[in-house]
Structure formats: structure tokens, C-alpha cells
């Protein structure tokens, strides 16, 4: 093992002298991988890693499953059947869930439209509002750090001839309200800005944005997939006109979500899915009763347990950050430290390549950002939008803490991260040079 380390160190040194940064980075990655694969040939298939990816999805709460099971069995009626008890039972269950969701966010049950999840809700809100008012209003405002489904919906609108403003964010990930103020136009129909970011956990000033939009009679949509159920949300106080919610981010089932659509002042939306006219014509298709029951139960539990859950998540979040930063230098937290949801911690470890760290940490289920982009090696567009350079963006890891995370898991995570970061840095000549006080930005790399 000693000679293996010596050898990799030599190769690493060699590799780091490539002049082209792209080539250098690629070579460094493959060396790091080779090193890690060697150390981890024996993963026990009978063991589950610690789940630290609560932004990608959450486990379904057993209390939610308990409410769903009867509707996956005996109560199979179509909630739209009006002529018999099977239909009535299902309809009652759907309407109860609609109320549970509405209560959590202080909405009216009639303002809740069921969808397949936040992706569909975001599509419906962004395209639906823009298209409905598209005769006169041709402009939509959003931010550069939105989830891909909002950004892609905006791209689709651009193809239809709409104008989109993609607001930049500040270094801390917050949308600058002055920039928003300047972006409004007489033909702006919609502002779509997310509540809590899924990669860096930043919480936008939703109330202020809501007021600014209401004053200008522009509709305000917020993607609250990472916020509802975890922090208090009040659609009236915050002047939200449309809001997307997802079941599987709040310990509910996958494949269900909803869109809040305000009735007063009325927001009109052009449907994307046409058919039988369910959900006030905004979303046709037979409602999936068991999933809806699950979403309703998940919302009710989030409301009941919010204080209990958030105290726990806050405590664990602080514990993890304190442990890691106490033992490691060169750690940067991405995103604002105050305007944040504590269950989402995004850290960059200088001179450690994020993907290599993830591969080394097989006992932890972690990700370097959103699940949609984690397959590609391109750095996160969210981190780029915050002005983080590519190198630091490449060295980022997201820690997702939730209701079911334990203190023991946090300590285990901290221990393993510290250990692996130290190991990877021991292999990095750049880290060594920096420790010796050499300013890396001043070095001119030469080719052999």
C-alpha cells in the first residue's frame, strides 16, 4: 500500500503540470478514481448506506403509508363516479386531502389542483399563465437558479416568441430585489422565483417579491417543492398567486403534487393536459386516489410536526457543519448562511474533486447537486450563477438532512467526510503547495 501511495503521488504530480486546465482536470479525475476504486473493492451488498440526500427525495413516512393502504386495496373507486358508493368514498378521500393541503399553506381547498408532481405544476404555472395572457403580455421573469423544469418551460415559451428575463443571483444565491424591480415591464405577466433552492438551500425573500408583484398586478408563482411542509408558508400573507408542491419531498408518495392557483384575484391558466375536464378543466385525467390521500396525510403530518422536525433538522445541521469545519480547513459553504433551509447544506472542499469524494464515500448516499444533473460531470449551473468558479463548483457536495436522519448518522457522516477529504488532499500536490504558502493563482504551468 505504501508504494501504491507513492506511485499515485508521482502520477498526480505529473498530471497536475498539464497546461490546459481541462486536460489537467480530466487527468486528475481519472487518477483520483483509480485510487478510490482500489481502496473500495469490497462493498457489502447487504448493507444500506446512510441516506443524506433529502433534497432528491425523502422516504415515505409509515404514517402516510398507513393512510394510503386502504385506497390501494378495498377502496378502489373512481373519485369521479357519481352514481355509487365506490365513487363517493374515493371522492370524500380526495376532498379531505385537498383540505389537508390547503390548511397547511392557508389556502382554500378549491385553489388546489392535483398534478403528477412539482415538475408538472411548474410547467402548468409558467406555460399556462404566459399562454393564457399571451395575447397582450409577452414577458416572464424568472431566476437563473430555478429548477430545470422551470427553466425549460421558459425556453419553450421563448420558442413561442415570449421574452424571458433570467435574473442573476448574488454571491449568496439571493435574487437582488433591485434587479427584479428593474426587470418589470408593462407586458410582464408572470414572475416565477423558487422558494427554497434544491442545491444550495437558499430561501428567497418570497414575501417581498410577492408584494412587488401584487403592486404591479403581475402574477407571482413560486416553486415551493423544497419549502412547503418544512417551513411555514402562508399564500395570503406572502401574496403568492401560484405555488408548486411535490409529495415525495415531504415524506409522501412519488408521482403526486399540486399547484395552488389563487381565486381572488383570479388567476387564469391555460391547461396543458386536455380531456375529461377534471380539476376545473385545468388538469384532466382520473385522480390517483391513493397518492392524493398520501399527499394529504403527508401535509397534515408536516403541519403537526413542523416544530419538532425543524428543531431536529436545525440541531443536526449545526452539528454537521461544526464537526466538519472544526477538523478541516478550506471548506466553503455555498449559499447564504442565514436565508437558508438548514436541511440543505452545500459545501465545497478546496482541492478535492466532488465526484471523487462521492465515490470514496460509498457508505454515504450523497450527491453533488440535483439528481437530474448528477449523471453529467458539468459543474452545477446553480453554483455557477452564484459566481463560484468551476474548480470550487466541481468540489461541492450537498448534504440533505431530514425528519428521519439521526444524530448517529450525522457523526458518522462527518467522520467519513473528514477522513476521505484528508486522504484525497494527501494525494494532491496543489493542496500541499498551498499549505506551504504558495499562491496557486500566480503559478505558470509549463508543459513537459
Amino acid at each position, binding site marked *: 500500500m505504501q508504494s501504491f501511495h507513492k506511485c499515485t503521488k508521482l502520477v498526480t504530480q505529473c498530471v497536475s503540470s498539464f497546461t490546459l486546465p481541462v486536460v489537467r482536470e480530466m487527468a486528475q479525475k481519472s487518477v483520483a478514481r483509480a485510487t478510490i476504486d482500489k481502496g473500495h473493492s469490497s462493498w457489502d451488498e447487504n448493507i444500506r448506506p446512510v441516506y443524506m440526500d433529502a433534497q432528491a427525495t425523502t422516504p415515505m413516512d409509515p404514517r402516510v403509508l398507513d393512510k394510503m393502504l386502504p385506497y390501494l386495496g378495498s377502496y378502489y373507486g373512481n373519485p369521479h363516479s357519481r352514481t355509487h358508493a365506490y365513487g363517493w368514498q374515493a371522492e370524500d378521500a380526495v376532498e379531505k386531502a385537498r383540505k389537508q393541503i390547503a390548511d397547511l399553506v392557508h389556502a382554500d381547498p378549491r385553489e388546489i389542483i392535483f398534478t403528477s408532481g412539482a415538475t408538472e405544476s411548474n410547467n402548468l404555472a409558467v406555460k399556462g399563465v404566459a399562454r393564457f395572457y399571451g395575447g397582450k403580455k409577452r414577458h416572464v421573469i424568472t431566476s437563473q437558479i430555478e429548477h430545470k423544469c422551470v427553466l425549460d418551460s421558459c425556453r419553450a415559451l421563448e420558442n413561442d416568441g415570449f421574452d424571458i428575463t433570467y435574473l442573476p443571483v448574488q454571491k449568496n444565491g439571493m435574487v437582488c430585489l433591485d434587479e427584479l424591480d428593474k426587470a418589470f415591464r408593462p407586458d410582464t405577466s408572470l414572475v416565477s422565483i423558487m422558494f427554497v433552492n434544491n442545491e444550495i438551500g437558499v430561501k428567497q425573500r418570497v414575501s417581498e417579491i410577492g408584494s412587488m408583484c401584487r403592486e404591479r398586478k403581475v402574477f407571482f408563482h413560486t416553486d415551493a417543492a423544497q419549502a412547503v411542509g418544512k417551513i411555514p408558508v402562508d399564500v395570503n400573507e406572502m401574496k403568492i398567486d401560484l405555488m408548486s408542491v411535490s409529495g415525495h419531498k415531504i415524506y409522501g408518495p412519488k408521482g403526486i403534487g399540486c399547484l395552488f392557483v389563487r381565486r381572488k384575484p383570479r388567476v387564469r391558466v391555460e391547461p396543458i393536459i386536455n380531456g375529461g375536464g377534471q380539476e376545473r378543466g385545468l388538469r384532466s385525467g382520473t385522480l390517483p386516489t391513493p397518492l392524493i390521500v398520501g399527499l394529504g396525510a403527508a401535509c397534515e403530518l408536516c403541519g403537526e410536526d413542523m416544530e*419538532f422536525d425543524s428543531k431536529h433538522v436545525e440541531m443536526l445541521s449545526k452539528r454537521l457543519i461544526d464537526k466538519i469545519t472544526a477538523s478541516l480547513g478550506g471548506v466553503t459553504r455555498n449559499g447564504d448562511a442565514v436565508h437558508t433551509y438548514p436541511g440543505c447544506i452545500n459545501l465545497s472542499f478546496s482541492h478535492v474533486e466532488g465526484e471523487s469524494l462521492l465515490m470514496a464515500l460509498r457508505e454515504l448516499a450523497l450527491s453533488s447537486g440535483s439528481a437530474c444533473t448528477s449523471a453529467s460531470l458539468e459543474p452545477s449551473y446553480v453554483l455557477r450563477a452564484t459566481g463560484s468558479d468551476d474548480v470550487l463548483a466541481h468540489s461541492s457536495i450537498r448534504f440533505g438532512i431530514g425528519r428521519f436522519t439521526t444524530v448517529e448518522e450525522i457523526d458518522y457522516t462527518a467522520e467519513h467526510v473528514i477522513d476521505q477529504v484528508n486522504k484525497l488532499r494527501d494525494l494532491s500536490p496543489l493542496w500541499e503547495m498551498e499549505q506551504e504558502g504558495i499562491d496557486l493563482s500566480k503559478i505558470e504551468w509549463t508543459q513537459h
Partner: protein
Amino acid sequence: MARNQLAKLYKQLLEESAKFSDYNFRCHSVRRMKYCYEKHLNETSDEKLEAIVTKAAKDLQVIQRQVVVGRLYAVEHHILDRDPTT
């Protein structure tokens, strides 16, 4: 009266929670039961106590059912689960 009933119920709730085969569900349920019990420890209103007892009894049924459901399918053990109950 309701107070004694509550203490007894919480003891059962704790015992039942400890039977979850899933490490995370088990830890969460035990922690939640302790929290709930402490929160309601100083409740004096009989009316409120009775409502709490009713809710706790329902909770107990849910946990009992879900402990059974959780054991229907064998899954890999959590890496930190030193005391698997299955």
C-alpha cells in the same frame, strides 16, 4: 384517570416503536414518542388529556400495523444498525 391511561399508552407506544425493523423509522418513532410524552406531561385539563389519549391510542394502532408491514419484505440492513430486530 386519563393521566394514568396516558402514561400506560406512552409506554406501549415506546415499546411498539422500538419494533420497527427500519433503523430510521425506529429511531424517529421512539424520539417522537418521548417528545410527545414530555410535551403532554404537565397537561392538567381533563378534556385535553382525553383528546390526547384518543390520539395516542390511534397512533398505537398505526405503529402496530406499520411494524408488521415493515417486516413483510426483507431489505438490506442499515450500516449503523447494530441491533436489527428482524
